[in-house]
């Protein structure tokens, strides 16, 4: 406070003296704003300030409502109102005047009006509707300043529903002769693209024109849009790679006007934007990556000046190099670059260096070894941010040998951290590595204890759940399970005896569950003792009711013998009268069970082995009851969101007459509803409701299992490690690996007192470089993963791991392998196979008798020998007229399909010897993909193998049995696949690889891809109007949109629906007047219903489905169909 006063006092003289100053646009301290600000500075207390502002606001209110106030005065008033709002006082009565000022004022006044609007209102404010006309007028103004202002305000805030009204005007501005206006128009479109991508779908060609604009500024602005679009679908824009590379080359070469230089670096913003785009384009794509190697190299070379901005470029460059298909020379340079960052004395660069390291160690863990000294220094850094980032890095290099040290460091940080967000994050990470690499039971339980105590009640709910699941499901050996459970029981009894009051609720819940379930394992521990300990928890003041019901459940399992019964009786007496219904019910149950030993033994069987429980989550056993009730006249059930919606529909103002779109409040409520089902599913499977879990003595984990996702993530992770190890031993690294392996003589040039640090270093980096040396010598490493179970699908890591595994695959295929001199069969080291027995078994890759089905091995079949010189053609390209092979291919079509409607046979890829073509066949309940492999050479092809890599959206099953291994000259092999779309998406890319051997020559492979659309998977759903009505009510996900009507004098609705039916297989259920209802379903999947109504020359469409994505994807195709019509 004294600081504030001091500051005020020092500021005052300068303030007063400034009065006499006269300068360009200097302080207008004689104005009313000036005196207001000065008034505030003179005050000493918050209270006085409040009084002053209140007075000011009253004065403002009076002035704005007076009819005599001129626009000029209004501008002055507006500035003061903005100032008051900035100080945190509401001045909502001025909002409407800000709009009026923007409407009626002259240019300068208008500018303040627009500023007020953009500061006061947010995008959903209803007053914004009043602004639309003003913006429209200004966009058409002859005064360019007004046009600029309008574009600025449009990009800052514009109601989404109103975009169509101004879109044509903004589009026109793309062709404006003045570049600043073109630039602003592009950015306004960027904004539209962000908030309503559907609305600007038709102007993609104009974006391309903006990209080719003669003004570099406009081109730069268009890159924002491209970055966004490329992020969504990189494949569509691969053809632009060359152009982006050329632009970057020109920028680096200094071809842009001097105006674009920043501290003599040419257009750094543009450079970084382009680097980001290139990284996205080159990701997992060797041929595209090859185009950009040169320019990346040059970019690295040119950015050598010692200035922040060049470091920014370098950092982005390194990220790009590590994202695209790797090239060894570039990687080396990037590594050197990272070294400069990490070793820099500038703390910002050090931080980014650590970040870059974290990014790259996923691909090459050995890089961490080079910088071990710095990493250890950073671990003790005074700046928490640096420390935090270092832990993140360590998390990525955790393995079975260094886990204890790293976890210890993480917990140490957690004890000091007071930021909830990073605590939650870090606690999750500790739990993850502890579960994965725990060296022994005692350590695991203790670490989890720390996690539960430190994580408190804010941590993710899945940590306690998966911990309990681990305990209850057990793993390989009985003995081991028992041991772990005993450890847990012992440690919890001790904790309860000490001071349970300081433990968080979640932890108490875990404790009571474990004690209830497993305390009988310890023979010398009497049930009475445990019950007494638990009863103490009930008495604690801060214990929540949820925890209490957990405790009561545990008691149910424990109550045995007369001593216990007395104690339990006490508890029951207290809680049977509880106000909390759940608690009351529990207490009742407990009472009954404790009195009836026979009943208890039946309900609470102690099962050591866990059989999966059958849970009927659809509650179908209640169907009889429901239909009876319905027959008796009960109202059908409406899900909560729908009740809410109907309520808000009744209340909300009808905005229909303005009719551009549906009320905003509705859509926002839909969004929140969308999230709730997932939340529900998690909690129902988890621990929130103890009553569910109590009866069958084991956790009901029905819901959780699905959350863990499919097998295979860990497999990829392992592959990464292998790859990293293989690639590791370049001469530069081997010495440091040696050093860390036998720690006393580390090569690090640190002075003597750092012995402690050296020890830490050897502890931290132990598993990294040394591992492959061990493997090569044939010793098996003694760090099998302790708790074998399905890997966690942690969103952040899994995606990147998948990616890096891909690129490391191709690394193997590159000539890097040759330089390392490791025979390729040692890539699968004994240690690694030993470490993941479960995975190899489930994936079936180790089992020679089991032929891998395409989807299981999908991730593994990436070509080691890719890029051998096969040209891949886009499926869309038309058949080469010179080679009329399609007519003959159709004769190879399987006989049972010959009569059915099928698509044209389109070529996928071809080279000298093989050609691939595909066609699709749709039937009522299947969608078939037929692939033709034709041998265009004279000689036989051997070891023919066709494999499809499917993304998560598709499920592919092979129908043709016994595909030939050999293919005679000019022969054709036909493969038949049945496809089902699992998660709806507008289009999916089905990629695959065909590998074969020519009689004389090495194995070859060719990649191909085929694009499929959602429309292929849509089938009509024949339902009656009544059924439709019932289904409509029960679906949760919906989307609304206005579509273009097909022009038809007679009946535009029918015409439109027919147009849709042409493209998509829909069932029109009924058309009543201006409304129509339509139903369709996803092949072997969920239905989607559409309700549409003609309204003001457009079609208001409302889609509903049990699947979240389906309505959006369908809408996309509706729009496309109507556009093409």
């Amino acid at each position, binding site marked *: 406070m004294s600081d504030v006063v001091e500051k005020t006092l020092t500021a005052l003289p300068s303030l007063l003296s*400034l009065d006499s100053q006269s300068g360009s*646009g200097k302080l*207008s301290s004689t104005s009313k704003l000036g005196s207001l600000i000065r008034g505030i500075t003179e005050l000493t207390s918050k209270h006085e300030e409040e009084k002053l502002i209140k007075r000011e606001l009253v004065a403002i209110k009076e002035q704005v409502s007076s009819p005599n106030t001129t626009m000029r005065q209004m501008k002055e008033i507006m500035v003061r109102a903005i100032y008051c709002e*900035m100080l945190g006082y509401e001045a909502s009565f001025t909002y409407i005047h800000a709009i009026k000022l923007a409407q009626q004022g002259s240019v300068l006044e208008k500018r303040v009006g627009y500023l007020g609007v953009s500061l006061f209102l947010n995008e959903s404010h209803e007053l914004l509707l009043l602004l639309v006309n003003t913006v429209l007028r200004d966009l058409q103004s002859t005064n360019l300043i007004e046009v600029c202002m309008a574009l600025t305000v449009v990009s800052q805030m514009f109601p989404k529903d109103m975009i169509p009204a101004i879109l044509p005007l903004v589009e026109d501005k793309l062709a404006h002769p003045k570049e600043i206006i073109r*630039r602003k128009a592009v950015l306004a479109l960027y904004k539209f693209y962000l908030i309503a991508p559907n609305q600007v779908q038709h102007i993609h060609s104009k974006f391309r024109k903006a990209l080719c604009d003669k003004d570099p500024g406009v081109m730069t602005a268009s890159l924002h849009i491209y970055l966004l679009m490329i992020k969504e679908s990189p494949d569509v824009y691969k053809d632009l790679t060359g152009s982006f590379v050329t632009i970057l080359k020109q920028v680096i070469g200094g071809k842009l006007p001097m105006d674009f230089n920043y501290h003599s670096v040419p257009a750094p913003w543009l450079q970084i934007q382009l680097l980001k785009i290139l990284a996205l384009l080159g990701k997992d794509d060797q041929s595209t990556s090859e185009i950009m190697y040169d320019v990346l190299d040059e970019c690295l070379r040119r950015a050598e000046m010692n200035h922040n901005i060049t470091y920014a470029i370098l950092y982005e460059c390194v990220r790009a190099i590590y994202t695209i298909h790797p090239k060894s020379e570039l990687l080396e340079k990037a590594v050197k670059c990272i070294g400069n960052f990490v070793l820099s004395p500038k*703390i910002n660069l050090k931080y980014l260096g650590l970040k870059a390291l974290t990014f790259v160690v996923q691909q090459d863990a050995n890089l961490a070894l080079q910088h071990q000294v710095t990493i250890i220094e950073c671990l003790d850094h005074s700046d928490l941010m640096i420390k935090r980032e270092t832990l993140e890095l360590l998390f990525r290099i955790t393995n079975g040998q260094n886990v204890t040290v790293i976890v210890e460091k993480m917990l140490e940080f957690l004890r000091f951290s007071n930021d909830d*967000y990073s605590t939650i994050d870090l606690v999750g990470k500790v739990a993850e590595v502890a579960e994965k690499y725990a060296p022994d039971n005692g350590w695991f339980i203790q670490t989890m204890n720390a996690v539960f105590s430190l994580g408190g009640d804010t941590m993710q709910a899945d940590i306690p759940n998966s911990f309990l699941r681990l305990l209850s499901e057990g793993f390989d050996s009985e003995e081991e399970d028992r041991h772990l459970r005993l450890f847990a029981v012992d440690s919890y009894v001790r904790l309860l005896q000490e001071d349970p009051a300081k433990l968080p609720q979640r932890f108490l819940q875990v404790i009571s569950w474990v004690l209830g379930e497993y305390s009988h394992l310890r023979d010398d521990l009497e049930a009475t003792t445990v019950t007494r300990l638990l009863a103490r928890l009930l008495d604690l003041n801060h214990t929540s009711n949820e925890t209490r019901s957990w405790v009561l459940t545990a008691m149910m399992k424990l109550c045995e013998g007369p001593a216990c019964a007395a104690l339990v009786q006490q508890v029951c007496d207290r809680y049977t009268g509880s106000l909390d219904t759940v608690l009351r019910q529990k207490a009742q149950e407990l009472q009954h069970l404790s009195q009836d030993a026979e009943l208890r033994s039946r309900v609470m069987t102690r099962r050591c082995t866990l059989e999966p429980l059958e849970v009927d989550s659809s509650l179908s056993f209640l169907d009889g009851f429901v239909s009876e009730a319905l027959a008796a006249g009960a109202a059908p059930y409406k899900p909560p969101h729908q009740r809410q919606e109907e309520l808000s529909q009744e209340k909300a103002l009808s905005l229909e007459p303005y009719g551009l779109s549906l009320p905003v409040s509705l859509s926002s409520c839909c969004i929140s509803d969308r999230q709730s089902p997932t939340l529900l599913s998690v909690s129902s499977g988890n621990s929130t409701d103890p009553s569910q879990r109590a009866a069958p003595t084991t956790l009901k984990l029905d819901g959780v299992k699905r959350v863990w996702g499919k097998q295979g993530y860990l497999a990829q992770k392992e592959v990464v490690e292998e790859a990293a190890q293989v690639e590791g031993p370049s001469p530069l690294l081997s010495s440091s690996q040696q050093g860390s392996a036998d720690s006393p003589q580390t090569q690090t040039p640190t002075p003597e007192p750092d012995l402690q640090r050296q020890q830490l270093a050897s502890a931290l980096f132990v598993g990294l470089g040394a591992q492959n040396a061990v493997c090569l010598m044939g010793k098996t490493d003694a760090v099998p993963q302790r708790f074998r179970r399905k890997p966690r699908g942690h969103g952040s890591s899994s995606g990147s791991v998948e990616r890096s595994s891909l690129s490391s695959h191709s690394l193997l295929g590159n000539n890097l392998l040759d330089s390392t001199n490791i025979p390729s069969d040692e890539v699968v080291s004994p240690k690694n196979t030993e470490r993941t027995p479960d995975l190899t078994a489930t994936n079936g890759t180790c089992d020679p008798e089991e032929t891998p089905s395409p989807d299981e091995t999908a991730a593994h079949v990436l070509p080691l020998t890719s890029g051998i010189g096969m040209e891949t053609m886009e499926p869309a390209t038309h058949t080469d007229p010179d080679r009329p092979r399609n007519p003959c291919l159709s004769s190879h079509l399987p006989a049972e399909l010959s009569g059915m409607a099928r698509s044209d046979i389109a070529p996928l890829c071809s080279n000298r010897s093989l050609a691939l073509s595909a066609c699709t066949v749709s039937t009522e309940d299947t969608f078939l993909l037929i692939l033709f492999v034709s041998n265009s050479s004279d000689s036989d092809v051997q070891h023919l193998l066709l494999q499809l890599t499917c993304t998560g959206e598709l499920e592919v099953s092979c129908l043709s049995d016994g595909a030939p291994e050999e293919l005679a000259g000019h022969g054709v092999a036909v493969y038949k696949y049945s496809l089902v779309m699992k998660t709806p998406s507008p289009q999916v890319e089905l990629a695959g690889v065909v590998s074969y051997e020519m009689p004389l020559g090495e194995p070859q492979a060719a990649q191909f891809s085929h694009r499929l659309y959602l429309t292929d998977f849509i089938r009509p759903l024949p339902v009656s109007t009544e059924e439709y009505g019932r289904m409509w009510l029960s679906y949760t996900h919906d989307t609304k949109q206005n579509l273009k009507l097909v022009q038809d004098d007679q009946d535009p609705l029918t015409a439109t629906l027919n147009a849709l039916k042409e493209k998509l297989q829909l069932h029109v259920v009924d058309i009543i007047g201006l409304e129509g209802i339509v139903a369709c379903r996803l092949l072997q999947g969920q239905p989607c219903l559409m309700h549409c109504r003609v309204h003001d020359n457009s079609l208001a469409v409302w889609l509903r489905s049990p699947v979240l994505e389906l309505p959006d994807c369908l809408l996309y195709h509706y729009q496309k169909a109507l556009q093409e019509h």
Partner: protein
Amino acid sequence: MMHFLLLFSRQGKLRLQKWFTPLPDREKKKVIRDMTLMVLARPPRSCNFLQWRDLKIVYKRYASLYFCCGLEDQDNELLTLEVLHRYVELLDKYFGNVCELDIIFNFEKAYFILDEFLMEGEILETSKKAVGTSIEEADSQQETMEEYMSKPTY
């Protein structure tokens, strides 16, 4: 993309706020409070980056004023520091040796300059001269199409 830009004094008084993503008022207040608390508590000579929820925070102090912005994960921190620096340069050019008081008394001008410099959380104009010109043009109130076309520079 930048999510917000805040200017506040060493005493934690807000001087300018710009939001590039829509947030409810209460959330804005929370962000402002958290930012001032976090940034002002940073010891000297620590790095200019922070993590707040899922946003990266980049801040820099110029004299008595802190410039602070929230970024998405893939944004470049160093570049953002330069964005802040360029904004300060622009203010400096406009006001001539800018100080906190200039921004307090003429905050609307600071907003106008920002609007010519950043749009939608992305940089609009990197050229110092060009921003200056467009501000001048706006200050001079108007420019018609005819005037613009008759200018010899085009």
